[in-house]
């Protein structure tokens, strides 16, 4: 089963694109295909969710303004060198799952390009368009992780 974690702050405009997409995927995918978690931020205890026996792969979904394409999906390399505090990086979560719970789970990060991260519940037109593309890419990717967009 896939674990899909969409994270971000829906009150900060396009930053909410990750949770929003995760919510749409929850409507599309069956409970047997994926467990969906919507989070404000990544926290250390999510390592336990990744390490659960039924999970074979993890897809993190986040918004970004630092990429040239509308959507990107790339594999994550577990890394313990990030800070572990009130929020953590996805690479650290994979590392925690592997090192503390003996579960090496492959992980990918899907990033959606946004442009407005100010205080609003509205997504920008660009983020809406990119999220539509991201939804399609995510579905294709979950069906066949070897095909990257």
């Amino acid at each position, binding site marked *: 089963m896939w674990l899909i974690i969409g994270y971000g702050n829906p009150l900060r405009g396009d930053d909410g694109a990750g949770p929003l997409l995760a919510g749409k995927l929850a409507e599309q995918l069956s409970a047997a295909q994926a467990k969906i978690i919507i989070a*404000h931020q990544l926290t250390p205890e999510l390592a336990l969710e990744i390490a659960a026996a039924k999970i074979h792969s993890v897809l993190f979904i986040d918004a970004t303004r630092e990429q040239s394409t509308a959507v990107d999906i790339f594999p994550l390399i577990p890394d313990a060198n990030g800070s572990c505090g*009130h929020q953590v990086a996805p690479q650290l979560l994979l590392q925690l799952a592997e090192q503390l719970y003996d579960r090496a789970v492959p992980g990918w990060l899907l990033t959606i390009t946004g442009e407005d991260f100010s205080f609003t519940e509205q997504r920008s037109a660009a983020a809406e368009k990119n999220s539509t593309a991201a939804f399609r890419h995510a579905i294709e990717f979950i069906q066949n992780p070897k095909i990257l967009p």
Partner: protein
Amino acid sequence: MSKTVTIEPVTRIEGHAKITIQLDDNGKVADSRFHVTEFRGFEKFCVGRSFWEMPGITARICGICPVSHLLASSKAGDMILGVRTPAPAVALRRLMNYGQLVQSHALSFFLLSGPDLILGMDADPSQRNIAGLIAADPDLARAGIGLRAFGQKLIRSLGDRSVHPSWAVPGGVRKSLPTEQRDELLKQLPAMYATVDNALDLMKDILDRFSAEIDAYGEFPSLFMGLVAADGGLEHYDGKLRVIDSDGKVLEDSAAPESYQQLIAEAEQNWSYLKFPYYKPLGPEAGMYRVGPLARLNVCDFAGTPKADRELRQFRHYGGQGKPVTGSFYYHYARLIEILFSLERIEELLADEILIDHHIRSQAGVNQNVGIGVSEAPRGTLFHHYRVDDNGILEAVNLIIATGQNNLAMNKTVKQLAERFISGSKLDQGLLNRVEHGIRVYDPCLSCSTHEAGRMPMQIKLISAKGELLDEIERS
């Protein structure tokens, strides 16, 4: 030549801050300051909103202890409604508060301070982090994550999400605890007790290992303040305010939380956005007080649960006969005892039939124009004070946050550490980390205390009396 040391940013705490240490012409510490450099202003922009919205809005102040704001705000709302909150709702609110104490204290002890406590203050900074902690003591890292997960699960079981749950409301709460989730939580409790027992053993080793320097981390006389139950027991949700001095003498007892303005005044400094609350009757210097786990264990007569009371008796040996424990390093120990206490209270509440009672909310309109809600957040006493018009629109908001109340003590701790460990004109990482740890023992949440969100990077600058920068260490 005098100089100033600046530590910026301070790491492994919540928020942005820096520390400056001014040296005199003889290279001795002349002054030090813990600057909080972020600003947000919830107290201003909430004016004009409805008090009904405040639990949801103020929970957004912080991603770590949103439950504290949710509860204090809801309690202020209870007062505006002038209703008696149903007993099942109070039990459920207490339950969520204990869940938050578990998860917040676990993060502070195991994951934020764990690298310092296990690897040592002088360990290579590139190793003194979660990677080093996992390598040195994976069981400890697992323990921290396990307790965090339990506390977050409890919060989520009630509020649907663990960060920023929108659950408590003026007059009560929105929903009860489903029976199947209650049973799941009960099943996990034995493992949680085992985890905290192991951590308490470890804590005693840590106290031995750090015995030569514990007294540099904020060992000084001060007042202590916290809520206590009507019978004098440890309290986190309701009760009365008690203030004691460093000899254990009770200065205030059974003070109504609503009368906090007679006890607390707030000073300001132009070099920090964090206010400096003090005990009003004694003034800004003699009125310095500490709040949080250490203070709560000092002001209560007893904990009120068997396991925590047994541990509290041992804890009190570090204070001397009849006297409070005055070293801030013992905040770590106090946090573990509070986790144990919270687990015992959670077990009691989960077994209580009151949780299945469906009367969880009282309905009313605005019956009073002032609401004051007080509860104990993980870091200490939290005050929400609202004034509303007859339509419930906020005219004034005052929030007094735990970290702010520890501000004077944190500044004094930094100075104590600097005086002990700074010599000469060069800075080293061991010094930097000890000064940071002096802040970390308080587990400050600067996002809350200035109502701001962010990280806490750290910079230390060493500046001469002439203002020349002599040395600088920075960490992002």
